[in-house]
């Protein structure tokens, strides 16, 4: 029952979020601010995670290729495919659900408990639209760039790890990265990234927007937001993969 209630409440929330903004100029400046807050400020963590993920995929692949018949370029190929298909979209999405999601839920939740949202409503402003729409648009715009950055850094991380540990020949690795490239995989992952960006922003906004109580409830909402957006990302990943890759 609670699930159905929440789905209904979330649908009503989205109707509010996607209604006509009060002022286009204000919306634009808010989107720019959110791109900086949600996207640019996440570059550091995306680079660090991608670098180490690429490195680990390379090393694990290299250490597990015991069959001498397997060509060496497979290490580079595996790293590229893993980064493009799953890690840079799904794992980075999960990391951002933690970082960005908790930030959004606590920001909007704090605004609710300190009556800042009521203040917006009293002014005649659709608070859900004013606070949430810029975040959703900003994330859907900037997260694909983070995805591309993650793929690039991940493949570079793999190259560095392979080279520094002498587990992979540099030329073989580069051959593998270029081998049997399917451009559609990028499109598939960019679609996933955009959907995850929506989940990462809309779900925490929802939990923050309907907080009741004080600091304790804001903390709880933040935790719920991260857990549920992570589950939804994984669920959406399965559904999108089935739809887009079958």
């Amino acid at each position, binding site marked *: 029952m609670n699930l159905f209630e929440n789905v209904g409440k979330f649908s009503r929330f989205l109707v509010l979020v996607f209604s006509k903004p*009060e*002022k286009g100029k*204000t919306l634009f400046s808010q989107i720019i601010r959110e791109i900086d807050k949600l996207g640019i400020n996440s570059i550091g963590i995306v680079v660090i995670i991608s670098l180490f993920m690429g490195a680990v995929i390379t090393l694990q692949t290299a250490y597990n290729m015991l069959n001498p018949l397997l060509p060496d370029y497979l290490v580079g190929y595996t790293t590229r495919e893993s980064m493009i298909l799953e890690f840079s979209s799904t794992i980075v999405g999960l990391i951002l659900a933690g970082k960005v999601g908790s930030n959004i839920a606590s920001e909007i939740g*704090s*605004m609710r408990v*300190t*009556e*800042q949202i*009521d*203040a917006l*409503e*009293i*002014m*005649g*402003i659709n608070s859900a639209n004013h606070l949430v729409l810029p975040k959703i648009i900003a994330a859907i715009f900037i997260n694909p760039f983070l995805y591309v950055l993650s793929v690039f850094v991940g493949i570079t991380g793999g190259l560095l790890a392979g080279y520094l540990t002498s587990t992979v020949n540099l030329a073989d690795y580069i051959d593998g990265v270029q081998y049997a490239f399917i451009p559609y995989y990028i499109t598939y992952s960019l679609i996933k990234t955009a959907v995850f960006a929506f989940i990462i922003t809309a779900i925490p906004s929802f939990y923050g927007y309907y907080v009741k109580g004080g600091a304790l409830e804001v903390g709880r909402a933040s935790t719920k937001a991260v857990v549920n957006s992570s589950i939804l990302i994984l669920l959406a990943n399965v559904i999108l993969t089935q739809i887009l890759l079958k």
Partner: protein
Amino acid sequence: MITVSNVNKSFADLKVLNDISINFEAGKTNLIIGQSGSGKTVLLKSIIGLHEVDSGSIFYNDRDFTSLNLKGRKEIRKEMGMVFQGGALFDSMSVEENVLFPLDMFSDMSEKEKKDRANFCLNRVNIQNSNHLFPAEISGGMQKRVAIARAIALNPKYLFCDEPNSGLDPVTAILIDNLIQEITKEYNMTTIINTHDMNSVMEIGEKIVFISKGNKVWEGSKDEIFNTDNKDLNDFVFASELYKKIKKIS
């Protein structure tokens, strides 16, 4: 003028407002007083539409707010200013940006005109040289004054204040009270203040409505309050030894 007519409100089985009818007059500071939990905040939030009433009507002059759709309500809300208990200033904005915000959203003024208006409002509440500071960097009293400046930025017809001097020292509290009263006269607004501060009642209570357990128990002026024989009101207003002595003298 705001007219509350036979308003009822319940939360689940708990009846919070019971058939409340009040006229709040323009150009006057109207005070709603009552103990914590008496229903005065619910009444104020019902008047401004943050709570939906179960039955009854709320009129802003001749416009029935309760029967309006979202668009109609939005138009009335543009005529409202609200000072929340905690100020409710936007944390991410500076003092000046907070006052500029309603102007940015709803006025067609040029950037310079908006800035001038914001500075005029800030000067009106005696805030100078703090435009660049953020809410977290200013005192509680200043936050309340900035909230008043933001509330009057668009020349509202109706001003609502929820416990405007709670958490303030007596001197600052009186300053805030007097400021609200001055602004009410200056702009001929209908001002409704929710309070349980007896200093406010004695200082600026031109019309006072006493709410107890969700019922309107008494209404009158600050002068009439000394002569009332209403027990609940007497117990509430003259609860302290000081006010008991004042009543005896008067």
